[in-house]
């Protein structure tokens, strides 16, 4: 079990450094298993430096940088053992447009092997959809779902009006 954990950990470690680079141009990051302890109990430390900056302490990172770093870690783990499906609920909220696009491009890439369900308010994320559903409450307090086309979805997400299409 100990070896299994260590070999999995090393694979995640490698993935994390690579995924982080796709999100942070010129950045680098690593995971470290604390040495003094039993690998089955040891804490895992995260070190991450966005591009061009000095070794950041995690707390000093910005809101968006922290989200992207955590997302890099989640993808790193996912790549070791892809789950059949994964749901993201407004995870893109703190990201600027460039990062939203990087994030949705990563999802598109992994979605070849995994079904992703992504809840969002962001127009760029919507564009990456294979299919798009709009949720509405035309009848007060009662939800219903409609399948939508992208440009209709744009008005729809904003106004909650069912597009006439």
């Amino acid at each position: 079990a100990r070896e299994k954990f260590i070999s999995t950990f090393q694979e995640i470690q490698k993935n994390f450094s690579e995924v982080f680079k796709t999100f942070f141009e010129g950045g680098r990051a690593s995971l470290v298993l604390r040495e003094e302890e039993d690998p089955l109990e040891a804490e895992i430390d995260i070190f991450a430096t966005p591009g061009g900056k000095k070794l950041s302490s995690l707390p000093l990172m910005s809101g968006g940088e922290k989200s992207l770093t955590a997302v890099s870690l989640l993808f790193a783990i996912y790549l070791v053992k892809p789950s059949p499906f994964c749901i993201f609920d407004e995870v893109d909220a703190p990201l600027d447009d460039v990062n939203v696009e990087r994030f949705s491009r990563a999802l598109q890439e992994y979605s070849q092997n995994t079904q992703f369900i992504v809840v969002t308010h962001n127009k760029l994320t919507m564009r990456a959809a294979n299919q798009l559903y709009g949720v509405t409450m035309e009848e007060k307090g009662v939800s219903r779902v409609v399948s939508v086309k992208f440009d209709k979805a744009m008005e729809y997400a904003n106004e909650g009006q069912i597009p006439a299409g």
Partner: protein
Amino acid sequence: MKLAELNIVGFKSFAKKTNLLLHDGMTVIVGPNGCGKSNIVDAIRWVMGEQKSNVLRSEKMDNVIFAGSASAKPVGMAEVSLKIENTRNLLPVDYAEVVITRRLFRSGESQYLINGNQCRLKDIMDLFMDTGMAISSYSVIELPQVEQLLNGKPEERRKIFEEAA
């Protein structure tokens, strides 16, 4: 192994029968604040066996039953069904498709069904356990959780590493 179809009726704000077809790749869900997007996410967790009421944002489990609104009366039962295609024969059953259903009545009585046959919650959870599709801490990702990964307790972080090993 893929999610094919979700049917919701009487669950949270989905008073009326709602059908969502799920395809390969990325499904994006949009809509105004409070229209029911996260409720769909909750429905998926719930039908797959989620028992923690705080994860479902309810103080008590029967809060998931549609409680009525200005334009619709409360109902007596919440029901969610999820059809899964057994595409790689990962499911330990002989069917090409498996439909899992969960119901909760105002009386507090629960029902669980696999392909229309009553079973226990445990049977549903075992079904998923074997396929790696179990609703783990990281099959649904939300923002607070993403930050927790960086700031939270080390044991939480270890947990998802161990789940991958």
